[in-house]
């Protein structure tokens, strides 16, 4: 039973971490390697608003998420727009930006275990004899809400439909009057907000450390590669696969191999099915 409960929690955690990354890639084909850095600055941002500006928790979260949206849009408008279409340059630019943000935070003294966010609701419950804290239940709840919202948004909202159109065929979408750069900017903003949202939900389970930025990036990449770059359904399925395998590994093998699962999943996917479970990069598969 503990495997089922903690497997679901872990899977939703991974899905929340990765959904922003896969959204940006799916729509604008931009690999946002600053994704982990945005996750971390959201945590520090909320902490800053609460402890330095003495704002209440909910307002701090909203402000931080709005700020992340603006940062995401700014990154596209002032950095990525200039290198769009050059895959290597996009990776280098976003990765460098992420590194710069994380190392800047470290340099400014954001280190140690003193930076924490309060849980939304204190306490724990027992499910079939397995103890679980309420924040983890909230992770599942918010995971379901976010996934449902993103599905509804991209199926029933005009902007969401335009984003889907871009993801399916950018040139055809442009012929229909959809502004490619504007959509990519929106995708970056939403992707950053989603990254921030995952931080807000997951960081109360632990503490805010700069190193989390690297872990979140690796896990997001793993989920997206296994699911198929740009495929949201694939990403969610991959999050569940990796999430459960990680918990089974910790339960029956060793905690030591927890992170290895994600890395191994990347390698195996690239060898056996380069386009991932639901990826649309058939040309890559054909080449292999």
């Amino acid at each position, binding site marked *: 039973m*503990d495997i089922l409960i903690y497997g679901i929690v872990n899977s939703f955690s991974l899905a929340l971490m990765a959904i922003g990354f896969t959204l940006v890639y799916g729509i604008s084909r931009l690999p946002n390697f600053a994704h982990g850095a945005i996750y971390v600055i959201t945590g520090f941002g909320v902490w800053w608003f609460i402890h330095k500006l003495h704002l209440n928790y909910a307002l701090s979260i909203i402000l931080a998420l709005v700020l992340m949206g603006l940062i995401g849009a700014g990154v596209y408008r002032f950095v990525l727009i200039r290198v769009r279409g050059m895959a290597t340059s996009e990776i280098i630019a976003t990765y460098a930006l992420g590194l710069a943000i994380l190392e800047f935070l470290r340099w400014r003294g954001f280190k140690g*275990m*003193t930076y924490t966010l309060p849980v939304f609701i204190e306490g*724990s419950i027992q499910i079939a004899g397995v*103890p679980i804290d309420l924040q983890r239940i909230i992770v599942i709840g918010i995971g379901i809400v976010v996934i449902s919202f993103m599905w509804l948004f991209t199926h029933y909202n005009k902007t969401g439909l335009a984003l889907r159109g871009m993801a399916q065929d950018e040139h055809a979408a442009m012929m229909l009057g959809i502004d490619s750069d504007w959509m990519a900017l929106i995708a970056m903003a939403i992707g950053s907000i989603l990254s921030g949202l995952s931080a807000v939900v997951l960081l109360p389970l632990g*503490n805010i*450390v700069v190193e989390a930025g*690297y872990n979140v990036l690796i896990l997001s990449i793993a989920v997206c590669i296994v699911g198929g770059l740009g495929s949201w359904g694939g990403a969610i399925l991959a999050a569940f696969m990796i999430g459960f395998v990680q918990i089974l590994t*910790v339960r029956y093998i060793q*905690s030591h191999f927890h992170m290895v699962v994600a890395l191994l999943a990347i390698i195996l996917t690239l060898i056996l099915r380069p386009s991932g479970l639901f990826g649309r990069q058939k040309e890559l598969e054909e080449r292999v």
Partner: protein
Amino acid sequence: MKKKWFVVWMVAFFVSLTITTLFSSEKASAQGKPIVIGSPLATAFLYGWDAERAIKLAVEEINAKGGVTVGKEKRPFKVEVMDTRDLEPGVPVSDALLVVEKLILEKNADFIVGGPVRSEAALAAMDLLSKYKKVSILTTGVLTPAYHKRIEAEYDKFKYCFRISGEVGWMVTGEFIPCLMGIKEKFGLNKLFIMVQDVAHARAGGDLVAKLAGEKGWEIVGKEVYPTGTTDYSVGLLKAKDGKAQVILIWMDMPETAILLKQWYDMKIPALPFGTIIAAAEQPGFWKATEGKGEYCMASVVNAGNAPSNATPWTMKFVEAYQKKYGLEPEGYGTSSSYMAVYVLKDAIERAGKLDSDAIVDALEKTDLMGVYGRIRFNPKNHQIIPSVDPNEGAVGTIFQWQAGKRVVVFPPKIAMGEIKLPPWMKK
């Protein structure tokens, strides 16, 4: 007109430059040439930044009293700190070695005090220190017995290396096992679950505790090894609960261990957390960081003075001086030992009367002074500080327990300030 003003400005500039140079050189000669202490430390982590602060505090105190007497000359200490990043996941050992070499070659360090902090990096740095014949005093991190065993095995090569802080062998046999036996005797607990970080000192320490505790009647119900940077311990904690563990022995130096304690509290795991090395719980800010969820967690801070106690007359003086300068109590392992290392170095330099490495090695081997954490002496064969549970005999350690927001020293008995308590959900 413009030309005239240009000449006036140029003259003024050169006059001010000359005056500044003259005054600064006069000041330097009045204080003597600084003795440079190079400190390679993982400054983003507790064992790095607390060492840096303590070294700077000692240097400031010594310089304020006139500096170090080298022969007939008074010379100040100067500290050069460089970040080794060796406690960060994924950073190769070679990076720490580059830092040590930079301190020696670019910063012209006369001595190395502090790290590298990670055992693997410190062991690798020994050859470098031997190559440049630089006297080094390890003060933080590095707990592996391999360090002093290597010095003993190849004394002539590694005689420049000293360690003024603890090592796993003594900590386990002299402190952790006796403390565990005290818990067994007092509360009747005998089931142990071990959680360690995937680094050399923690793996070795965990294995040694398991072996010795097993021999002393403890049942080892499980062992988990976590990679550096782990942020979820829930399944491991459930394993401990399923195995009916009564004490969870934790050996981790990463800040994420605060998460482990929060999860332990949220899941109400009925086992006493005993952090033999647990960087997060050592710090005064731990209580606030865990919102009090870390209560009852025990932690070793390796040397006395890293938490308030009356081990020696100097202990509380140090605690108060640190608190006055940095606004909080000494933070954990590496604080008092780094502070003492500077005083021990001063003492050795003054006795040697020169900075020559071989003379300093001889002087350090003859060190015998009452410090912050007891009597400071080095074993002349392996340059490891001589430990004890009595501060009058040697360097004493400290194990404390978080009780009502305070770090209460519970071991060794000679310096204990309180008794070990069990969390309410463990009481029958």
